[in-house]
């Protein structure tokens, strides 16, 4: 199935949920509303669209904008060789989104990484802990307002002026 047909079906079926269609770097991009994520993903994962693979899931910090964070999902259909990118804007004060762990197993650790680095909460995630940083680490290091040279050592450093 061609990707254009998928886009056309999306335009018909989810015309209220999708705010923007575009093509970026050769891939189709759709901007969607936060509430409709699971519905759209359920529709895309089923036959005949078969977006069976979650290539990547990450977050972007657009500091200073009204809706500060943007979740990005890269989907791939192995049988149809189609790629599709979903983007969702999130407000800083309401940093919550539905988890995709019920659709793809690898979403578990990818969402833990986004939680670790950006502080986005995922509703329905089975085990939302930090992935890379240690217990007791405060703040979210990949946010643009995290100080560049702020370090949080576990053990005391030998000379006091060390950072």
């Amino acid at each position, binding site marked *: 199935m061609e990707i254009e047909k998928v886009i056309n079906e999306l335009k018909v079926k989810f015309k209220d949920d999708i705010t923007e269609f575009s093509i970026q770097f050769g891939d189709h991009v759709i901007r969607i509303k936060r509430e409709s994520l699971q519905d759209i993903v359920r529709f895309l994962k089923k036959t005949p669209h078969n977006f069976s693979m979650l290539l990547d899931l990450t977050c972007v910090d657009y500091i200073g904008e009204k809706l500060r964070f943007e979740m990005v999902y890269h989907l791939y259909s192995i049988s149809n060789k189609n790629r599709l990118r979903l983007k969702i804007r999130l407000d800083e004060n309401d940093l919550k989104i539905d988890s995709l762990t019920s659709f793809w197993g690898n979403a578990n650790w990818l969402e833990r990484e986004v939680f670790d680095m950006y502080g986005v909460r995922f509703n329905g995630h089975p085990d939302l802990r930090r992935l*890379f940083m*240690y217990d007791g680490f405060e703040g979210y*290091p990949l946010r643009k307002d995290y100080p560049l040279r702020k370090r949080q*050592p*576990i053990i005391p*450093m*030998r000379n006091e002026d060390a*950072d």
Partner: protein
Amino acid sequence: MGRIKPRHHYPEERKYKGSFFATKLNYVIGWGRKFSIFHYPFITACCGMEYMSAACGHWDFDRFGVGMTTFSPRQSDMLFVVGTISHKEAPVLRTVYEQMCEPKWVIACGACTLSGGIYDNYAVVQGIDKIIPVDVFIPGCPPRPETILDAIEKLQDKIQYQQQDWRWKSKK
């Protein structure tokens, strides 16, 4: 003042001629230690490739007496820290260092280990001398194997001429 007899006039001299020599205990212990360094490789990053070529056939620092690679810190003399050390890993490195028996030495290999290198961010320790004492620093990103051999020779010089501690005489 009477005339001093030539040394070979002592009969004991003649008897033991060429069969012993006099030296200093400190020097002998240093000589023994510098050619029998058991090293513990603490390798976390890409400098490990250079360490491997220095340790294996092409450069082969077994020629300098650093052949024995141990993976138990309790049986090693020299800690070879190779690669980026993150703050999450710092307690592990310090534990490994504290488990080593005296006398012990540390070589820090590569820019990340010395100073954090290009990683001036939230995650990386800015030089392992902030965690444990270091004897020899090897700069380079990554250092050539020849540089590692040079560092080993410098460490051997240090071991040879330092004040040795042994059983009935401990370091201050």
